């Protein structure tokens, strides 16, 4: 889960960069960048959930 989360973080960032390189109109770029940002948030959520199960610690 943590590895997938990290990969999603990188994928979201790649989407944002792709928006800058491939598109020219501000509205299209913004929509693409927001989508990439949403993918990043999904990855962050997965990463967080992955670590949540390890966070009990020594009692």
């Amino acid at each position, binding site marked *: 889960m943590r590895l997938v989360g*990290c990969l999603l*973080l*990188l994928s*979201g*960032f*790649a989407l*944002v960069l792709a928006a*800058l*390189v*491939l598109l*020219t109109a*501000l*509205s299209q*770029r*913004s929509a693409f*960048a*927001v989508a*990439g*940002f949403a993918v*990043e*948030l999904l*990855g*962050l959520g997965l990463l*967080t959930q992955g*670590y*949540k199960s*390890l*966070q*009990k*610690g*020594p*009692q």
Partner: protein
Amino acid sequence: MSPLPPNPLPLDQLLCLFSIMLVPLAAAGLALIHQGLGRSRSAAHSMLATLCVLAISAIVFVLIGASWAGFAGGPAHTFAAGGVRWDWLGAAPALARTAHFDGPDASGLSRSLLLCLEMFAAGLAAIIPLSAGTDRWRLGPICLASAVLAAFLFPLFAHWVWGGGWLAQLGANFHLPPLVDAGGAGVVQAVGGLMALSVAWITGPRRGKYSDDGVAAAIPGHNIVLVMFGCLLALVGWIGFDAAASLLFYAAGPQKIAGVIVNAMLSASAGLLAAVVVTRARYRKPDASISANGWIAGLVAGSAACAFVSPVAAIDTGLAAGVLVTYMVEIFELHLLVDDPGGAVSVHAGAGLWGLLAVGLFGRFPDGSRGGHLLAQLVGIAALIGFMLPLIHAANLLLNRLMPYRVDGDGDWQGMDIRELGAGAYPEFVVHADEFVPR
């Protein structure tokens, strides 16, 4: 007595020099906050760790990191992709050879000032994770992680934003305004806050923090007076940092510095009051430690746009940061089970990212559309979460393999002072006598 030099420093450089001299007070403030919010059995360790972090990050940054942070218009590593030349890492001569401490030319002095400010900025970024690792992060790994942060992680993002890297060149390459981060909300605070998140994940919670079914126990800070005093010191340091960075990186000019000072104070005040009101409404009484976090969150969030917003916008930014941090602290501690004793993730990463976004929402710029500025700031936030966080976390996982971050079970129980330093911070106050007896 030698006469005054014939050409005294220009006003902006003199102001910049004076502002940089205030920045170590921000480190002092953060150090007091971190140790005050930790347990008394780790107080001396926390302060010593802060000094070690500052020492290591200064040496490593000046010798190595400054080369990779680079400066605008300086040599850089680039590559071409998608028809664009991506400037991703500075390539200035190592060992601080671009700084001319006795050079007469203006550009040389600017580079010397740049080195001064970024040296302290690297130290500030490296101090922030100490808060998340309080009471269980060992001194050796702290030093190692700080060296890596100051040598590569901080300079990488500093180059992107302040050193003429690709985020500073969004205009030339993509017809967007450049990312604006006048006071280091992203470069310093968010990078340090994301490092703190990674450290909290890797070190795990303190012993006894969570029960088997995930219910959190309150482990209050041991000296809230020091925390509040740290907030006051941090204000002075922050004003210095915001002013110096605005002058150096965004050519704000001396006439804008009064506005920078007013905005820093207003955003901190709004952050504090928002936290006081929210905690009063939710818990019946204001929570002192969360309110202190609100103050720092206001400073963090307000720093990104300190030279480019009106006082009203600075208040809005601080208010939102104060509200945000009260909820983020609770979500991280109670729902995501991230044991972050000083709230570094919420205060520095959360408020730092909000501050970057606030530039796009509230910033007053002579050129570029509001949408363009918002998109540029969003790209910067995406770079921090989507690239810097995985990179920072991978570096921490690797370092944890080389030198385990977390103290062993007995050390956790004894406290870091006894375990790593051999003596407590308050030897005459034997409040944990039973726990100091070796088993």
